[in-house]
């Protein structure tokens, strides 16, 4: 009988199955459909960029923790892998290796580790890296290989959103511009130009369903963000369909789906409560549409999420869930 050495600790004495490494593994699994589609669409370029981004992110985090902070290694939690994947998802699949390295260094070094590592960063690290690259290397960051082109130096072209923005500026009509685009079915499944992981709404939705099923995330952020984009672009489209594209186009193109499923739902940089998540999702939706319709950039999801990240502490302070006994007391 083992009587001598019993563990004595406070309750609870059991724990749920879902722990940090399992959540991270779940998120990675949820990203597989989008990645697989990207490889199908862009070939080895997608795999090359993704692989490099993951290796750089993990390597940089390992180096910072070991040599700069001199703390026990933290990479086994899997979060650096996700940052690498998400960074890759947000860049073109023909990006040169040194730009990926710079992006990874900014994402992990400045975006995450400078704040104290996992859980302490106010801004989504992958988006910090992505926006840094967009501002520093505007040309390579906005020339996407065409879908279906398998070689590394493939023909590049603009995204549907880019075509729309430039075309409208050049004075072309909305109808003729929309006619240049792939069909909605093609856009939904992802046969369009764009960053590595953002093209296929279908693949991203598969990931979303998996994460909802595993209870890794709740519906609040994706649904509120997507609905806001639909409603807002819908209002503008109804006002003037010659000037504004329809809501379906806006939801299926660019980074809206990727943002709603993987970027905005990042635990660390989104609010704690369901109420807060709804405010956060609506805010991202509104800002995205404003930037798309009236801003200089064709796409605004990254900026919208980063701006809303900055509001998260405030949202956490005020968006509280109802308490037990609270309603009755007020009466």
């Amino acid at each position, binding site marked *: *009988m*083992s*009587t001598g050495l*019993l*563990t*004595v*600790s*406070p*309750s*609870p*004495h*059991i*724990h*749920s199955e*879902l*722990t*940090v490494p*399992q*959540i991270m593994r779940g998120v990675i699994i949820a990203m597989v459909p989008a990645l697989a589609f990207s490889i199908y669409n862009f070939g080895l370029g997608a795999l090359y960029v993704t692989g490099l981004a993951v290796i750089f992110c993990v390597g940089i985090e390992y180096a910072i923790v070991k040599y700069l902070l001199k703390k026990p290694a933290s990479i086994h*939690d899997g979060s650096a892998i996700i940052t690498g994947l998400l960074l890759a998802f947000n860049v073109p699949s023909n990006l040169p290796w040194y730009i990926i390295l710079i992006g990874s260094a900014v994402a992990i070094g400045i975006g995450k580790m400078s704040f*104290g*590592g*996992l*859980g*302490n960063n106010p801004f989504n690290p992958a988006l910090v890296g992505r926006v840094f690259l967009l501002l520093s290397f505007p040309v390579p960051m906005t020339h996407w290989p065409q879908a279906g082109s398998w070689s590394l130096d493939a023909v590049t072209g603009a995204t549907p959103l880019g075509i729309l923005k430039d075309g409208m500026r050049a004075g072309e009509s909305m109808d003729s511009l929309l006619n240049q685009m792939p069909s909605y079915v093609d856009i939904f499944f992802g046969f369009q130009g764009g960053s590595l992981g953002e093209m296929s709404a279908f693949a991203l939705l598969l990931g979303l369903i998996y994460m909802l099923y595993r209870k890794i995330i*709740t519906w609040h952020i994706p649904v509120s963000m997507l609905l806001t984009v639909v409603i807002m672009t819908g209002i503008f489209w109804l006002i003037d369909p010659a000037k504004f594209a329809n809501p379906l186009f806006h939801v299926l193109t660019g980074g809206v789906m990727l943002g709603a499923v993987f970027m905005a739902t990042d*635990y*660390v*940089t*989104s*609010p*704690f*409560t*369901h109420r807060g*998540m709804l405010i956060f999702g609506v805010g991202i939706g509104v800002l995205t549409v404003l930037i798309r319709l009236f801003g200089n950039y064709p796409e605004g999801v990254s900026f919208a999420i980063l701006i809303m990240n900055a509001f998260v502490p405030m949202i956490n302070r005020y968006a*509280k*869930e*109802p*308490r*037990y*006994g*609270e*309603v*009755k*007391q007020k009466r």
Partner: protein
Amino acid sequence: MALHHKLKTFRLGGVHPDDQKLSAQAPITPLPLPKTVTIPITQHIGAPAKIVVQRGDSVKVGQVIAVHEGFVSSNIHASVSGRIGVIEETMDSSGFKHMAVNIRVKGDDWMETVDRSDTLIEEIKLDSKEIVACIMEAGVVGMGGAAFPAHVKLSVPEGKHVDYLIINGVECEPYLTADHRIMLEKSREILVGIKILMTALGVKQAIIGIEDNKHDAVELFEKLLQHEQGIAVAALEVHYPQGGEKQLIQALLNREVPSGGLPSDVGVIVHNVGTTYAIYEAVQKNKPLIERVVTVTGKSVKQPSNFLVRIGTPVIDLLIAAGGVPEDTGKIVSGGPMMGKAIADLDVPIAKGTSGILLIPKEESTRAEVYNCLHCGKCIEACPMGLEPYRLLILSKKGNHSRAKEEHILDCIECGSCSFVCPSNRPILDYIRLGKTQLRKPKKA
């Protein structure tokens, strides 16, 4: 009257741990008499009882050995017959040392006043005041775990009107089955106990709340209650902490106890089924609370069991009767896995509030690696009181107790749901307990 068609549950939070009711099919069996018992005089919330026996005295089963001091206190009776041994400080399941009376067992000689027959006595002869006095005399305390003296709950303060009695048969803690077995085997006695409580409180309505993983008990009471007026049974969703007093009241009656208040503030009194059975025995059989049903369970336990145990029996006696202590035992918990207390010593005595002894294998007995807070919000989703556990942890850790109080830290019922779900294994409840303790400390002048 059947209410179980749509399962009721509480409004906020909660978790779904695996229910692991391994001993659900094991009938209640009396444990052989121990050689000695150690009966602590602090087995209840309130003032310790005052010892009225001396070393060397002979006592009979049911004889008072310590009397209550004041109203919020409880009588303690000899649970065995024999000779009083040492009276000294002994460690109980809380880990603290308290005065306890040791009795060396000799025979099984009961007080003549106790009716030991199995005959069901349905007629209630006493009035409200006599019932309360009888329960107080018998030393009945809440047997669900908190061990609050039962007679105090029955003395509703002036100005409060109670219209509902709730009988808590939820047993939402995983593993535990003591209440389940009592409901199956003593349903008629419990029904009389409910009527006694209704008489004492002067209420016309009572509901028995039972989690639906004990559907046999729900059906049994439905059959039993067919011709009863004012007493209903309700099946509840399997959802922890369904048996929390505040959660149960909300689930059954949609009333919420105000912050810092008591169930009687919303017209409700809640008693556990085990307590109700003890009240039946006290009032109808004149039998003080000297024994209780204890579940002995765990994944590696040879024979998960439900024993009828004399108060003061050492834990080791129960473990031997359940097939011995498994090799892989890493932790022994008095109570359930969510709220029970880990014990360090197998000589700890069974008290009036001990509902179970749970043996946890080594690999599940230590906590896993702690990560930084991910801000996932799962603790908020899980909190049945609607609090923000992550914030309470931070505030308590920083020593900012006044802010923690503003964030309603004192509303915490310590159910453990937040620590249970935290994917980063953060010791949330540990820090909340610390914060609550700091706030309850008397302020230095």
